[in-house]
């Protein structure tokens, strides 16, 4: 049977789905056997099959196993049914059913189709495969148990189908498409039929229906549909997020930085002041591209038409993209603080009185810079040592120089014995490094005279001498000769011991002397850096040694290092211990003053940088909460430094006054500061050979 078709396309009504021949097996056709033995293939509803004319003689039945290609049963059936009258009519039943029979089915006339007498065995199959050149195009038809040799046309058809082409060679799948129902609006109606009456007369039935519904609504039979309750529960991912949080989702949006708007420079016809002169242009060219203020040279064109393409356009776009990509999208929280709030709440200086405010007296008499000053414990006398190799004693209240003592060298350090019962001044001399004790009261003389020679002489690092008579009349009482020049002396608060610092690089930098026994000892075996100054703790047996960068605190009884205070400065120049003993201030040559709270930390509690130049001297007041620092800038800064008994309360440090008066000489200003023992007065000695009293 031949199915004829006029058009090769398969159309679906209402859609443009196209089915091509050869693809039919994708659909499930239903076969209907007709009464004449032929059958028709019915595709699912909506498809009309247009099949190309195929005439394939199915002469041979081939073994499907050996076939070089496989065709579906349907295809074979299709091919076979179209070609010959040797036809099995058993239908699509498994051929195994006929395994035990001699026939294989029935032909069109109802006669049995017999199986071949001899079945091919494996050997035959193999021989056939080896010998028959047409083996590859032979297919086995199970229905008739015959081998069919495919013709060349069939082979080519199979090839085409395999490669996804149309079966018909002549079929052009890209033919122009004629659309019956185009989108265009036609000017003529498709039909000439007049409109129905019902199209313009309201429908009575509908009216009745509507009135019924209206009545039902009025009677309350019909109720409006309840709004559909959306029971969908969504989980709000951001519900628990704090909207005010710094990292809030929406707050994190950082808009891209805006590009600068073009200015006059970018104009094609800029005002002449924007055009670079020759030197400017040269300078521009010399500059590093990153340093240039403008990334281009402003140019002038007669008209916009003559402006050439911008050569750096791509480059700049790229740069911009880079900027956007690389720009740090970090949110910097703007701190909206009143600058006033940042200033610590300190009491006003005038609430912290008394403190020295004004220069009151000038002690004149020295002829060279006054390196050191010291007050007598009673506050009546002031001792000063100067580079003019003299020690002078002044009456504090009038500024009168009461006594001048010639010593053999520049006086680097002078300390009044803190014990009020002993009137001694420890003076130290640079060039002839010896130590002179100077006496005013006879009681002190007796004290020194009461010294009894020890029975066995001990080796001493220094020489103790009782001065000659003429020196004794000048005031010298004891001379301690050091091997090197002495930088500093300091008394213990009991007044018997004194420590001296030698300008020496060996381990003998610090010596401690006992006046009553005339003994000296070197407390340190090792040299731990250049010692700047030393000091005794006012109450406890501690000893402070300031080297260049740190202050070491030793316990003299246990003979061990207790603390090491790191001063955070380059070179300590001076040190003072609070009379309570728990606080230390250090002045340094890099113009810092560090306040240490020994109970708090080994780092400075506060660093004050009030001075402009190196600090030379610092001092604490004995009774008043005051400390002062003198500097090379010629000023003395007095600070209120309140130390509370409450351990939880940190010291209160308030700078209260800058005292100026000294003139700068040889770039040196104030060399030493000292407080009056009882009054809130500060003395400063300067390089201008004066001592000044500020009250």
């Amino acid at each position, binding site marked *: 049977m031949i199915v004829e078709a006029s058009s090769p396309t398969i159309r679906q009504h209402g859609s443009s789905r196209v089915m091509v021949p050869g693809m039919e097996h994708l659909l499930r056709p239903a076969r209907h056997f007709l009464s004449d033995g032929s059958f028709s293939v019915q595709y699912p509803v909506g498809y009309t099959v247009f099949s190309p004319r195929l005439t394939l003689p199915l002469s041979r039945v081939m073994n499907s196993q050996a076939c070089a290609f496989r065709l579906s049963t349907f295809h074979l059936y299709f091919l076979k049914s179209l070609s010959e009258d040797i036809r099995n009519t058993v239908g699509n039943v498994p051929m195994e059913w006929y395994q035990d029979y001699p026939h294989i089915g029935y032909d069109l006339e109802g006669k049995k189709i017999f199986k071949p007498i001899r079945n091919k065995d494996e050997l035959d199959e193999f021989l056939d495969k080896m010998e028959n050149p047409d083996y590859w195009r032979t297919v086995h038809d199970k229905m008739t148990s015959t081998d069919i040799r495919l013709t060349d046309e069939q082979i080519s058809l199979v090839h085409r189908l395999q490669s996804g082409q149309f079966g018909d060679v002549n079929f052009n799948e890209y033919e122009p498409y004629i659309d019956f129902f185009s989108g265009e609006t036609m000017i003529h109606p498709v039909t000439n039929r007049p409109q129905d009456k019902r199209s313009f007369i309201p429908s009575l039935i509908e009216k009745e229906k509507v009135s019924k519904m209206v009545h039902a609504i009025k009677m309350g039979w019909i109720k409006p549909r309840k709004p559909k309750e959306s029971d969908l529960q969504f989980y709000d991912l951001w519900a628990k997020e704090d909207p005010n949080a710094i990292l809030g989702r929406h707050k994190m949006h950082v808009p891209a930085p805006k590009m600068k708007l073009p200015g006059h420079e970018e104009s094609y016809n800029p005002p002449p002041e924007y055009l670079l002169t020759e030197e400017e242009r040269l300078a521009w060219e010399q500059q590093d591209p990153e340093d240039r203020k403008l990334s281009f040279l402003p140019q002038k064109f007669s008209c916009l038409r003559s402006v050439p393409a911008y050569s750096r356009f791509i480059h700049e776009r790229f740069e911009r993209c880079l900027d956007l990509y690389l720009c740090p999208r970090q949110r910097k929280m703007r701190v909206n603080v009143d600058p006033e709030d940042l200033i610590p709440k300190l009491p006003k200086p005038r609430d912290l009185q*008394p403190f020295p405010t004004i220069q*009151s*007296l000038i002690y004149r008499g020295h002829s060279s810079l006054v390196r050191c000053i010291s007050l007598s414990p*009673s*506050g*009546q006398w002031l001792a000063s040592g100067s580079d003019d190799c003299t020690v002078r004693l002044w009456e504090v*209240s*009038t*500024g*009168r120089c*009461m006594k001048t003592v010639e010593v053999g060298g520049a006086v680097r350090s002078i300390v009044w014995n803190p014990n009020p019962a002993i009137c001694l001044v420890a003076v130290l001399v640079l060039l002839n490094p010896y130590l002179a004790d100077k006496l005013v009261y*006879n009681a002190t003389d007796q004290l020194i005279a009461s010294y009894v020679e020890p029975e066995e002489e001990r080796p001493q690092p220094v020489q103790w001498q009782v001065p000659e008579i003429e020196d004794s009349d000048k005031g010298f009482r004891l001379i301690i000769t050091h091997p090197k020049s002495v930088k500093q002396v300091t008394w213990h608060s009991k007044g018997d011991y004194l420590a001296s610092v030698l300008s020496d690089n060996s381990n003998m930098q610090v010596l401690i002397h006992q006046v009553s026994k005339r003994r000296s000892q070197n407390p340190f075996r090792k040299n731990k850096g250049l010692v700047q100054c030393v000091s005794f703790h006012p109450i406890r047996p501690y000893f402070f040694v300031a080297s260049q960068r740190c202050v070491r605190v030793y316990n003299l009884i246990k003979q061990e290092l207790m603390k090491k205070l790191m001063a955070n400065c380059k070179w300590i120049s001076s040190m003072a211990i609070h009379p309570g003993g728990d606080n230390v201030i250090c002045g340094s040559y890099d113009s810092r003053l560090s306040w240490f709270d020994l109970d708090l930390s080994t780092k400075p509690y506060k660093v004050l940088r009030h001075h402009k130049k190196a600090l030379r001297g610092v001092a604490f007041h004995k009774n008043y909460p005051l400390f002062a620092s003198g500097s090379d800038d010629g000023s003395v800064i007095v600070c209120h430094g309140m130390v509370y008994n409450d351990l939880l309360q940190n010291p209160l440090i308030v700078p209260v006054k800058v005292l100026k008066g000294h003139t700068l000489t040889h770039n040196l200003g104030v060399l030493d500061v000292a407080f009056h023992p*009882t*009054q809130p007065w500060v003395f400063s000695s300067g390089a201008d050979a004066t001592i000044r009293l500020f*009250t």
Partner: protein
Amino acid sequence: MSQLQVRFFTENAKYKVDDVPFSIPAASQVQDLSNIINKLLEAKHSKICHSNVEFDFLVRGNFLRTSLVNHMEAEGISTEEVVEIEYVQRFMAPQPEECIMHDDWISSVDTESEWILTGSYDKTARIWTQEGKAVMTVAGHTDVVKDVAWVKRDGVTSLLLTSSMDQTAILWEWNVERNKLKARHCCRGHAGSVDSIAVSPNQTKFCSGSWDKMLKIWSAVPTDKEDELEEQRDRPRKKQKTEQMGLTRTPIMTLSGHIEAVSSVLWSDNEEVCSASWDHTIRLWDVETGNMKSTLTGSKVFNCISYSPLCRRLASGSTDRHVRLWDPRSKDGSLVLLSLTSHTGWVTAVRWSPSNEQQLISGSLDCVVKLWDTRSCKAPLYDMAAHEDKVLCVDWREDGLLLSGGADNKLYTYRYSASTSAA
């Protein structure tokens, strides 16, 4: 130019004018007002019997120093009412008389009716005549003489006191006729420099204040008996002999209570001693019982005090630029009645006028001696700027001789006619 309604009055009957209000320019200065008064007096008396007199004017008890309107603005006086202006004859400026050169700084000065006694840093005291002639040198101290005082004059002999940094005060007897000086008593007992001495008004006792924080009361009557001094026993015998000037005298009483050095003492009457100290207090002591009566607390170290029996006020000079007036009778009050402010340095010496209850002089480290009237506390009446260095001591004699000594080794004397005061 605005006008002011003023009414002039005076207590001096000689210069009285009619008690009627005048309208005068508000910007009038002292000189203008003085001219007005003179014109009025001329009109009242005949031109012949009135000579031109300089007047000073007081508005509500304060001297006029600026223009009238400025003064009233500063004092807060309404310009609507009639202003009562008192006028007095202007004090004549002190006339410098002598400049007495010393060898060293002058630490103290005391005058008597005829002689001037000065203490100096060269360890001596000197007696001068009023004309500046050195009469006597009082040498004996081993250290700076800090204070001097006349005790009394008894015919041809005078008693005088010197105190020194060598911790002693010495009572001298000076025979004026023979010009012989004899140390009668060496007053030992202080353990610090004796900075101040004061003789009681009845001239039998004197008080000394020292750096050892003590006040000691001594007898000022010379005797021939030597007091025992216990702590002198262990001293070397030899030294004691060499240093001894006169017979040793021990104090009658020791007043302790000051916690710092005593800088100045004085007797306010025969039974009361007043002392000023570095501990910022002025203390009043009862000499009979030795008790402290009251304390006046200041804020600065006191350098000097002076008491005027006329106005019964204390004047104090401190280590600041103010002269402060106190009422010693106020109980434990630290009330400053008035501050006289014009100095630029520490006030080292003050002295009330012995005759005028409103005037005092002060010396300061700013090298100026100022004459004050308490009715004008912002500006002094006169500045005496003769000194070239610190002024350390001033004195005012009853007949109007002002003296000031200082660190320029010079003692200046001025003649001041306070008698012209209308009051």
